[in-house]
């Protein structure tokens, strides 16, 4: 075996007060071979980013400090390096890409200045040489027209472009090790695929090692050689990619796979990991996962499991420790849960609960002395869909496509420019104020960010009661109290939550409070705006299960707005794919996902890193980026990125055509007119 390029031993980084530190990284060991891609997988708050910052000694001082450990990089212990010596390593031998491309670049320096600066720092290049090298780098990360882009400021670039610049910046000095901290989390799926492919290609060309930090099993499946799973400040399992995906060993790893929503799990409840990640400011006597583990027994409470290393893998669990484990414990149903009889979905024939017809939301852009309207943001530009009682319609699209605006327009939270929303055959948008306020109760919304959706100054009881007070002001205090208690029970929160404040709850629990608030007014339709995308995988499953069971119990309808195709496959009955303010494809979930017609839908499916146990697959990246909704391209909005573009696409917007039963698509590939023209 070759000498590892990086060997980390027993690294510990603590935060906060000396007496009661937060042990963000608590004894982490791993090693990376040259040219290898090593994934550090874990949920938020498990200490994976802090591990990366510790490697470069960039832990924010004085709050954070490295307590102990050895970081052996190419034969040198970095922790013995002085700050001046570290500076020769940073950016030169070890470079790092950060999660948020929007803020990671200096806004007042040009792209060129920021890259050239690095070159001058480490390679003592003169300006001309550095400029040449920078142009080459920008070209290497496939930034079009690097000669003009080099003088751009970060705000003139899109998110994907910024991340490319960031990659160019890190590659400038040809580092031996690249640390990529959630490099694509802030990006859309199609852009994510582009960036991941780029890193993979560059790695192949330069032979550098990559430490990829991520929470996304899909990314791990596609891109890495070796996987380490982190939990609560420790590594609980390492294995090669194949071994990890074919036979995850630690109960936590197993659970992660089980909690992943996929189409195969339709109609059954997802495996969940109960509870949430423990706080790291306490001292653990036993296993850190014990409270959430299905296999836990007394030994797990009594003693912390030791690291059990074998050749190229290892696990930290009593189950695999022959000294502790009882033979019987090794056998329980580790196999993935067998699909139970999946419930059949009968399509309803009665009138749909909600009908949206040709909905348009245009935000005016005002300029000049008298705030004259000089243009519009065509956020939503003619969307029609129907939601039946008890059905879930998923609205899928990349950020900026207008999907959230559709949800808000249905709730009349934004003013619609044209089109109708009929709720139970009543024109919802045109009701007078009083009636509308009464009808507010019928349609409710759940937001993406569990931290901003609850007023931090109100107790959970007050939050839930708010809707009751408006919609049912006649309730007596006792009845009101009773209802709140019922609602809390409905969403699986304890009774005492009533007098507590949102900050005392975890993200998943907050999302439950949000659901309870919405349910308080007995809605028939819930608009769920990415309700799980801010949550960790293990918690996401809890919320999805809850939404599903509520639908079964209360007959709710959902408009489920998301970018996550895995969730769509698991939960939705119908899918609407949205691109730049318009629906491009609409149909029931089986036909859309199995036989996607629109090139955009196909691209989305191809770009999503699908968790797949078979083997590596190259992500099919879609070229280009989503155009601005201020000036959508003429003709079909998608023609600028479409791999199957035809002349007609550049001039005419395709009308929706009905393909299979209930499956509509807006694409010239399927329109008779276009076909005739091409003949």
């Amino acid at each position, binding site marked *: 075996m070759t000498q590892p390029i990086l060997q980390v031993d027993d690294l510990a980084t603590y*935060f*906060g*007060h000396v007496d009661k530190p*937060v042990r963000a990284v608590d004894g982490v060991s791993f090693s990376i071979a040259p040219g290898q891609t090593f994934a550090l997988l874990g949920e938020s708050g498990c200490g994976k980013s802090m591990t990366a910052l510790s490697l470069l000694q960039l832990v*924010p001082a*004085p*709050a954070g400090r490295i307590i102990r450990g050895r970081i052996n990089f190419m034969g040198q212990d970095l922790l013995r390096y002085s700050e001046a010596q570290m500076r020769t390593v940073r950016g030169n031998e070890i470079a790092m890409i950060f999660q948020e491309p929007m803020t990671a670049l200096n806004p007042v320096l040009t792209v060129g200045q920021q890259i050239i600066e690095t070159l001058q720092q480490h390679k003592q290049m003169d300006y001309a040489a550095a400029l040449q090298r920078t142009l080459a780098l920008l070209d290497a990360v496939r930034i079009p027209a690097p000669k003009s882009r080099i003088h751009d400021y970060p705000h003139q670039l899109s998110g994907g472009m910024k991340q490319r610049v960031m990659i160019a910046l890190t590659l400038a000095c040809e580092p031996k090790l690249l640390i990529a901290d959630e490099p694509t989390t802030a990006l859309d799926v199609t852009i994510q695929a582009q960036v991941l492919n780029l890193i993979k290609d560059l790695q192949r060309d330069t032979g550098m090692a990559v430490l990829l930090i991520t929470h996304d099993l899909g990314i791990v499946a596609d891109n890495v050689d070796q996987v380490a799973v982190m939990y609560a400040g420790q590594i609980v399992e390492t294995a090669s990619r194949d071994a990890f995906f074919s036979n995850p060993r630690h109960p936590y790893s197993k659970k992660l796979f089980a909690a992943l929503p996929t189409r195969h799990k339709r109609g059954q409840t997802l495996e969940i990991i109960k509870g949430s990640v423990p706080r790291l400011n306490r001292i653990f006597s036993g296993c850190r996962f014990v409270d959430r583990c299905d296999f836990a027994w007394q030994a797990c409470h009594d003693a912390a499991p030791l690291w059990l290393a074998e050749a190229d893998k290892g696990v930290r669990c009593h189950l695999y420790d022959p000294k502790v484990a009882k033979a019987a414990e090794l056998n329980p149903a580790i196999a993935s849960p067998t699909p139970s009889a999946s419930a059949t979905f009968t399509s309803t024939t009665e009138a749909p609960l909600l009908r949206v017809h040709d909905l348009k939301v245009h935000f005016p852009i005002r300029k000049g002395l008298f705030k004259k309207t000089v243009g519009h943001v065509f956020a939503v530009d003619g969307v029609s869909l129907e939601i039946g009682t008890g059905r879930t319609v998923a609205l899928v699209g990349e950020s900026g496509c207008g999907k959230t605006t559709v949800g*808000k327009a249905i*709730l009349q*939270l934004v003013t619609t420019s044209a089109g109708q929303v009929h709720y139970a055959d009543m024109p919802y948008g045109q009701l007078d104020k009083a009636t*509308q*306020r*009464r009808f*507010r*109760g019928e*349609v*409710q*919304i759940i*937001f*993406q*960010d569990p931290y*901003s*959706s*609850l*007023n*931090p*100054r*109100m107790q959970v009881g007050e939050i839930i009661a*708010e*809707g009751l007070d*408006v*919609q049912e002001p006649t309730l007596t205090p006792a009845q009101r109290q009773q209802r709140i208690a019922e609602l809390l029970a409905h969403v699986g929160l304890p009774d005492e939550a009533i007098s507590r*404040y949102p*900050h005392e709850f975890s993200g998943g629990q907050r999302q439950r409070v*949000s659901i309870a*608030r*919405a349910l308080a*007014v007995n809605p028939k339709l819930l608009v769920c705006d990415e309700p799980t995308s801010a949550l960790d995988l293990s918690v996401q499953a809890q919320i999805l299960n809850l939404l599903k069971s509520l639908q079964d119990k209360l007959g709710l309808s959902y408009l489920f707005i998301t970018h996550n195709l895995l969730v769509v496959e698991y939960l939705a009955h119908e899918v609407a794919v949205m691109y730049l303010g318009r629906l491009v494809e609409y149909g029931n979930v089986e036909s859309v996902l199995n036989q996607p017609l629109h090139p955009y839908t196909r691209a989305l499916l191809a770009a999503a890193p699908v968790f797949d146990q078979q083997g590596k697959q190259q992500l099919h990246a879609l070229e280009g980026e989503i155009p601005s909704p201020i000036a959508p391209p003429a003709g079909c909005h998608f023609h600028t990125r479409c791999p199957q573009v035809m002349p007609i696409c550049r001039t005419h917007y395709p009308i929706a055509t009905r393909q299979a039963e209930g499956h509509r698509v807006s694409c010239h590939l399927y329109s008779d007119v276009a076909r005739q023209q091409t003949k």
Partner: protein
Amino acid sequence: MTQKIQRHWLVWPTVLAGVMAILWLVVIAMYQVDPVYLISDKLVTLLVIFVIYLIAYIRTKEHLRAPWREVFHRKLAMIALIFISVYLVIALIDSIHFRLPLQKNTVTEQAQYETRVLSLFDVLVMPLRKRVEHSYSAPFASYGLAKETLELAAGREVRDYPRLRYGGTHLSDPNSQTLTDVARSLAKAGLITLVIWIVLVAASIYLLAWQQGQGWNEKRQQIWREQTIVPWRVVFATWGVVLFIITSLIILSADYHVFGTDKVGQDVLYLSLKSIRTGVLIGTLATLVMLPFAVLLGMMAGYFRGIIDDIIQYIYTTLSSIPGVLLIAAAILSIQLYIAAHKDTYTLVEKHSDLRLVFLCIILGITSWTGLCRLLRGETLKIREIDYIQAATALGVSHFRILSRHVLPNVMHIVLIAVVLDFSALVLAEAVLSYVGIGVDQSTNSWGNMINTARLELAREPAVWWPLLSAFVLMFILVLAANLFSDAVRDAFDPKLRRLSGRV
């Protein structure tokens, strides 16, 4: 958690306010005084009641208590708070005004009162007020500053420094005895302080132990090891310092003029203590006056946007574009004219200078509300886009309810920070304005007026430096304490700053 019977939070402040009112009535009846309610006194009363209710409210809300706990945990903040409290107490007892009864007129049987309006503070420090010398004298002096023609017993006249009427009269040879006498007095003060301090601290520890159901010894050790939220060790030490200052001032001013006397022989310590009320009142009332406008308008502009926003923005841009001093000058000049033209209405000197003080507070409030209003508008613009407001709108909650239940509680920390920050700036502003001649009335005791006269006194030969020093020391302590305290409040309440200061 122990399940106590939960009384409504309005109960105890109401009881407290009631007890205070009854106490006052009893005092009036017992001492036969004629209460005088100046406008500023009424405003102070209003402010005190408001603060009492506010504290009661804060105690019910955990999210409000938590940052305060952090403030009280800071040692510097607690030291500052203790000094501020001393100032506040002096300002409060100096705001209780009345006229003392004269000897009863036996003929008419009608109660008659002195024309001079006194405050409770005046009564407490009556000796200070009454011991008036001829003219200037230095601190701890026994002789006047300037030579006078003295008549000796033999009828001969000689020019020499006169002995003071009150300062150092007990000394036979002041030149040699003053130092030892002062030292002796300080030692006496130290001893008395020690006794009071021990009793006070013991009682406090006992009370704390009793309140939290702990043993006396346990609590004592906890405090000594600084394991309590409030740093009691530091608090007790500060009490000691404050007690020592107060007792030594009391003991020393029985024999001396600690800060000397001014031109007409008034005790400078008395004058600077009386100035406390002016400073504190301006620091608090000016903010109180502006607060409702700033909060309401700022929130409305940010929440409703459109034409309402345009109008409110126009108003505050216009007001803030006028240089503050000039606006105050313009307003005060007009009011001066107004008071001069309506002289008959304000017969009492106190009433007429009080009116000017109140007007100054109002006008200072008007010039300083625009900054807060702008801040609140910006914050409301942000808050109204946050999901929980959207959720409330989706539930059909009315605008008023959204403003009062969602927006207001989430901008309160900004209001609080502004109030605390403004305090020290206003105290400093008072001095400047009084110097310019657009501050408080000449007859009102204020540090600004003291500095104004001190400037010329410093040019005298020998220089009269003690009024300036006295004003400087008292003002500096108050402003420094207020600044330190407001720093702590800002750190605790501003989430952005908390991140910056690097604490987790």
